[in-house]
C-alpha cells in the first residue's frame, strides 16, 4: 500500500470527499493561505477554489453557527481551527446547538453534520492558550462524535466517515503527527466511530492512548521490550463513542492499565478509560491504574518546563515499570520533539 504523511492523508480524504460530494465546503481562518493549514487544505484550495475553501473572519462563534445553518440547508461544512484552544469560542454553537439539533427537533428532521478539525498539541513554547487538547470537553456532551486519529490511515478514514455521516463531529489532530508517515488506502472509505484498534500486541501491561500518545506508547513499548516487558497498546481512535470492549478485553488479559493523554487527568480521557475498567472488570486489575497526563498547571513556555510538562514515552515507560514492580533505573533519553524547529508555529 502507498505511504502518505498524516497531513497528506487528511488532504486526500478532503479532496476525495469534496470531489464526490458537491455539498462539502471548508471554512476557517486562513484555510486558503499558501501554507494550507499544515498542508491539509492546499490541494483542496487548488482544486476547488475560494467558493469551496473559504477564508472567514475571526469569528469562531458565528462561523460555527453559520456552519450549522449551512448544514441545515443541505451543505456539509468542514470547519478548521489551527488551534483547538480557539474552539472554546465555538463551544456554544457546537455543544448547545449542533450536538442537540437532531434530538431537540424530534429526531426525524435530520442532523446538522458539521465537522470540525481542531489542531492540538505542544509547539514551540506555545504556552498556556495554544497547546491545549480539549477533546474531553467535547466528548462529555451527548450528540457529538469526537475522534483523535493517531495514524495517517485513521486520519483519512475517520475524516471520510465524518464527511459522509449525519452527525456533528469534532476531530482533534495533534500537530506533531502531521509529518508522520504510514500506509493509507487509496480509496475513500470510512472507519466507523467507536471502534478502537490494537496498535501493538502484548501481554503484561495495557497502555490505552489516543492521538500522539499512541506513538509515545509505542516508543515506550519498544524500550520496555528490552526490559522484558510486553506492552499492549490500545488506540481508541474515537472518544465518543468509546470502544469499551477493546479496552476491557486488553485489560482482562494484562491486568495492568496505563492511560496516556495530552490533556489533564481530572475529568479527562484518562478518567474515562479508568472508569470503564472500574465499571466493567475491576476484578481483572492486578495493580492500580496509572494515568499519564498533564500536571495540574497551565502549560508553561520555557523549554525545560515544557519538556517536563508534556507527557511522553519516558513517563509511560516509568509508569509501566512501576506497575510491573521494576525500578525505573537508567533509561535511554528520548529525542526532543521540537529539535531543529524552523516553523510554522
Amino acid at each position, binding site marked *: 500500500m502507498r505511504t502518505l504523511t498524516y497531513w497528506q492523508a487528511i488532504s486526500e480524504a478532503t479532496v476525495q470527499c469534496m470531489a464526490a460530494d458537491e455539498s462539502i465546503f471548508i471554512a476557517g481562518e486562513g484555510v486558503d493561505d499558501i501554507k494550507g493549514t499544515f498542508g491539509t487544505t492546499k490541494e483542496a484550495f487548488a482544486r476547488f477554489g475560494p467558493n469551496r475553501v473559504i477564508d472567514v473572519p475571526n469569528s469562531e462563534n458565528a462561523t460555527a453557527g453559520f456552519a450549522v*445553518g449551512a448544514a441545515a440547508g443541505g451543505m456539509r461544512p468542514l470547519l478548521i481551527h489551527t488551534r483547538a484552544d480557539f474552539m472554546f469560542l465555538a463551544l456554544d454553537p457546537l455543544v448547545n446547538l449542533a450536538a442537540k439539533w437532531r434530538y431537540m427537533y424530534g*429526531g426525524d428532521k435530520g442532523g446538522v453534520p458539521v465537522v470540525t478539525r481542531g489542531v492540538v498539541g505542544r509547539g514551540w513554547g506555545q504556552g498556556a492558550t495554544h497547546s491545549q487538547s480539549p477533546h474531553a470537553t467535547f466528548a462529555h456532551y451527548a450528540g457529538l462524535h469526537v475522534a483523535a486519529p493517531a495514524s495517517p490511515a485513521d486520519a483519512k478514514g475517520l475524516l471520510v466517515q465524518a464527511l459522509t455521516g449525519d452527525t456533528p463531529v469534532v476531530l482533534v489532530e495533534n500537530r506533531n503527527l502531521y509529518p508522520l508517515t504510514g500506509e493509507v488506502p487509496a480509496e475513500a472509505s470510512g472507519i466507523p466511530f467507536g471502534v478502537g484498534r490494537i496498535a501493538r500486541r502484548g501481554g503484561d501491561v495495557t497502555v490505552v492512548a489516543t492521538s500522539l500518545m499512541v506513538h509515545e506508547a509505542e516508543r515506550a513499548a519498544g524500550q520496555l521490550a528490552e526490559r522484558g516487558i510486553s506492552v499492549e497498546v490500545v488506540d481508541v481512535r474515537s472518544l465518543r463513542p468509546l470502544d469499551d470492549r477493546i479496552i476491557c478485553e486488553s485489560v482482562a488479559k494484562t491486568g495492568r492499565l496505563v492511560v496516556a493523554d495530552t490533556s489533564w487527568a481530572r475529568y479527562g480521557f484518562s478518567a474515562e478509560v479508568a472508569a470503564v475498567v472500574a465499571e466493567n472488570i475491576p476484578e481483572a486489575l492486578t495493580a492500580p491504574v496509572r494515568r499519564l497526563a498533564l500536571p495540574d498547571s497551565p502549560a508553561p513556555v520555557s523549554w525545560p518546563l515544557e519538556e517536563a510538562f508534556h507527557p511522553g514515552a519516558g513517563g509511560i515507560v516509568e509508569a509501566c515499570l512501576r506497575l510491573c514492580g521494576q525500578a525505573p533505573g537508567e533509561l535511554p533519553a528520548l529525542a526532543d520533539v521540537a529539535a531543529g524547529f524552523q516553523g510554522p508555529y
Partner: protein
Amino acid sequence: MTSGRTRLLRDMVRIRVVEETLADHYRDEQEMRTPTHFSIGQEATAVGVCAATDTRDWVYTAHRSHAPYLAKGGDLKAMVAELYGKQAGCSHGRGGSIHLIDRAAGFAGSAAILGEMIPVAVGTAWAFARGGEARAAVTFFGDGATEEGVFAESLNLAAVRRAPVLFVCENNLYSISSPIGARQPAGPTIRDRAEAAGVTAVQVDGNDVFAVHEAARTALRHCREGSGPYLLELATYRWREHVGPGFDHGDGQGYRPAAETEAWIARCPIVRAADVLREQDPGIDRTVAEWRALFGDEIRGAIAYAKEQPFPDVAALLDGAYQPVPR
C-alpha cells in the same frame, strides 16, 4: 377572499386568539410543562415579515417562537401538541415551546440560547445563494440578543459574504426585566449598528403591520436580488410577562411602569390594523369577531387533540440523539 391587507389582520387575530387561549390553559391546567414566551402584543412583526416570505424561504427564531411559527404557516396542532409534550408535537415532545420546527412551512427552527440562530440563518442563506436559488433566510431575535457578540459577528459575516439573510429585530425594549437603557447606551440604535457593519437597515413601527410588511417585502427583494443582507429594527412591546402566561405590569414586579405598558396596549397592532381597514371595509369589526370565534374553535380543537395524544414512549428516550446506525 380576503385581500392581502385583510389577510395580515386575520393572521394577527389568529395568533392573538391562539396565544390568549393557550395562556389561559397554560395557567389553569399546569399541563404544558415547557417555559413559554408569548408574543401577545407583538403579532405585527411576525405577520408582517412572514407574509412577505414565500414557503421556500426559511425562518429561524429565538425563544419567542409561536407567532413567527404560526405566521409562517406552521402546523397549529403540531405546535400545541409540542407544548403538551406529546409525541404528535412538531418536535415529538423533545423540544418544547422553545424548539419549534415545521420544515414544510419553511419554519426552520427556534432555539433558546440568545443569538444562537442569528449566524445559523446566515449559513442557510449563504447555502441558498450558493445553490443559485433566489431564496432568503430570515432570523427573528430581540433587542437583548443584539448584545451577544455573535450578533455583530453575524452581521459582518453576512455582509462580507453578501448572504441573502433578513435580520429581524423585535425591539420590545426589555430583556426579561432589564430595560434597554440599562443595557445599551442612549443614542445609536440597533439599525445604526447594522449599517456600521455593512448591512442595509431600517427602523419601522413594529406595531404597524402594513408598514412592517412593506418593509419586509423591500428587504426580501433586496436579499433575493443578491444585494446582500438586510436588517429590520421593529419597535414593539410584549404585553405579558417575559415567560409564562401572566401580565406583570402593576403587579408589584414593577420593572415596567404601568403607564408604559398601558400606552403600548393602546397601540395594539390588531386594533390599529382594523382602524385602517375600517375605512375601506366598515364591516371589519364583525369580520374580526367572526375570526375570533373561528380561531377560538380552531385552537380549542387543537388543544383537545393535543390532550388526547399519547406521550412519547419512554423506551424511545434516546432515539434521535444520534443518526440511526444501519445494521
